[in-house]
């Protein structure tokens, strides 16, 4: 149970699920959730490599920074989603295509 590969499998699965969410969901909030999953997959990788690579707490600190960053990113992204909703009355990202040709 205590092996690097296990963590990497979980991380890869998490990443794939996140990517799938980002690529397939039309709902803006769901896309954001996918992004959060991708970021957390990266976090797991950081911590796992830190733990098994013998690098003290470097990875942990990195993942903490990523968490903070994710929070900030979520705040901004949600603000954008709210604005899209205000303007278009929907949060379907396909509809936000005013800049298209």
């Amino acid at each position, binding site marked *: 149970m205590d092996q690097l590969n296990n963590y990497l499998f979980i991380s890869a699965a998490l990443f794939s699920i996140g*990517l799938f969410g*980002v*690529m*397939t*969901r*039309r709902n803006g909030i769901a*896309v954001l959730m996918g992004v959060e999953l991708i970021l957390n997959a990266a976090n797991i990788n950081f911590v796992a490599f830190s733990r098994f690579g013998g690098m003290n707490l470097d990875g942990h600190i990195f993942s903490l920074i990523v968490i903070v960053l994710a929070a900030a990113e979520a705040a901004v992204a949600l603000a954008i989603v709210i604005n899209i909703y205000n303007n278009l009355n929907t949060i379907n*990202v*396909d509809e936000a*295509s005013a*800049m*298209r*040709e």
Partner: protein
Amino acid sequence: MENMFIKYSFFILFLPLFAFIVQIFFGKRLPRQGDWVSISAILVTLLLSIIMFSSMILDYDKNLYHEASFTWLDMGEFKIKLGFLVDNITIIMLLVVALVSTCTHIFSTQYLKGDIRYSRYFAYLGLFTFSMNGIVLANNLMSMYMFWELVGVSSYLLIGHWFEKDSAANASKKAFLTNRVGDIGFFIGIMLLFNAIGSFAFSDIFEGVATGLIGGGTLTLAGVGLFMGAMGKSSQFPLHIWLPDAMEGPTPVSALMHAATMVAAGVYLAVRIFPILTPDALLVVAYVGGFTAFFAASIAITQSDIKKVLAYSTVSQLGYMILAVGTGVYTAAFFHLLTHAMFKANLFYGSGSVIHAMHHALHEKHDHETDPQDMHNMGGFKNKMPITYWSMLLSTMAIAGVPFFSGFLSKDAVLAGTLSFAQHNPAHFLLPIFGFGAAAITAFYMFRMMFLTFHGKPKMPDIIEDIHESPKEMTGPLVLLGSLSLFIWYTLPYYNPLSTHGWFTDLVVPRDAVVPGNLTAQEIEDGAHHAHYLAMYISIAVAAIGIFLSWFTYIKKGLSVDNWAKRAGFLYDWSLNKYYFDENYDKYIYQPSLRLADKIAWIDWEVYDKYFINGFGKVTHWASKVSGKFDFDIIDQLIVDGTGRITALLGRGFKNIQTGKIQNYVLYVTAGIIILMIIQSF
């Protein structure tokens, strides 16, 4: 700027230039058209000159010598230095220029009253004064040459002041071009010296000649070359033709430039370079000067235009100075320059005053046909214009060589030198004959001019009532310069009217020639001293004969002018027509060169233009057509437009993948990364 003389010279040089700049740009907008700017500048210049002159007199040092120079051009080993040289000759000359220039400025305020280019006239006077002072102050041939040309330009501009008149426009061109002939020689002379010695400065050149860096034929050639410049500027035979025509300029200009200062620049140059003239070069100088003196005097006899008489008399007197340089008594030449500047400027102011009066009188009668300068229309002005008459009479006495007047002293010194030269070299007996002959003729024609203008019955009785004395601005300079024709100003602190001994001879002492083998200054002076009394007696005698003949002919009517003119035959005709110089120059120089120019123009047009220029044009036209086709078909159509078309095609293709859907983009990115990873793993 280490001492007062150099510092003052600096201001003397640049104040008139300042006046010129102000006048040329702002003159028209200033009150009184800005003549006060020029006049105050020249008055300060005069004041500084007087201060320099007084301190020279107070020092009484014949070896006064100050020099300051700066590097003008610096190219490694090759350096050209320009600078100031102040010695007694410079200071005297500066005073002459400033004095006559001041008088001219003041005189002109009346003479050119209401002229359409009044401010420009004063601007040019400033430019002239600047350039003349530049010549006087130069310590080297290079800057002298530059100012020399500047003086030529200002002369050109001022002779052509009334350029609406064809004669004035032509006269200015003639003056400029004739001077150019002399200046070519001047330049060759400078370059010969520079080539041998490597410096333009007088001191270096004297040293170089003394140490034998240049000598023999080359030095003679260089000397004659430099003298050619003097010949042009001082209007010596055969380049004398421009000066009489230059009388087309305003009369005050004639007084300033074509009598007192500018034409004296040639003599000044000859005086400066005297030490390097070889005996052969000196002979050339002496003969040119002597012949000019005699020849110009013989023309002046028959002229009826009052200014033409004075012009030829100027040429003749300049010939005297050149003759003096040639015979070795170059300080006498400078002395004659000084006295001549005063009395000849005054004679020109006098003639200006007469012409001014005539002009007004004719204007009253609405007569615009009669020539106001023709002496045959004058006569009997003596009581109408007393100040003009008396001051002109003083100057006439001076130029005729009457004792107690300045001209006697200087002419005597020149003639003594000439006589002594002929005594030592009997082969050159012609020189004193020219000299004394010219003196007699000068006395004759100058009094002829006075008698015709001021004495006798008025030849146009209907205008005599309207002849009035000129205003104070014009009579002032007349009185001042007229009184300067007296001997006393030149002999102080001594009072002997028959001897040149005075402050001038004490302060301006001749220096030895640096050419090995030339006579020393002491030998020349001893000779001249020896010949002094004989020269004096002869010159008094010839002056008396000239004046008597003139009186006998024109006052007493003892000789009939017409009869004598007939009896003289072709001589009279030649003199009246100035020996047909203009006509012969026209026939043998101008016309052939015009024809040559025509031929060259024909070649230029028929051969060069037709085959080379037009042919080249055709080839270019054809080549440009080909090149145009290439440009259009290959460059434009294929490369430029082709690039555009390809880009447009690609753009249309790629447009399809720009769906605007974020998920699609993410898919592409992911697919791209996966492809990269697959490639990486092989």
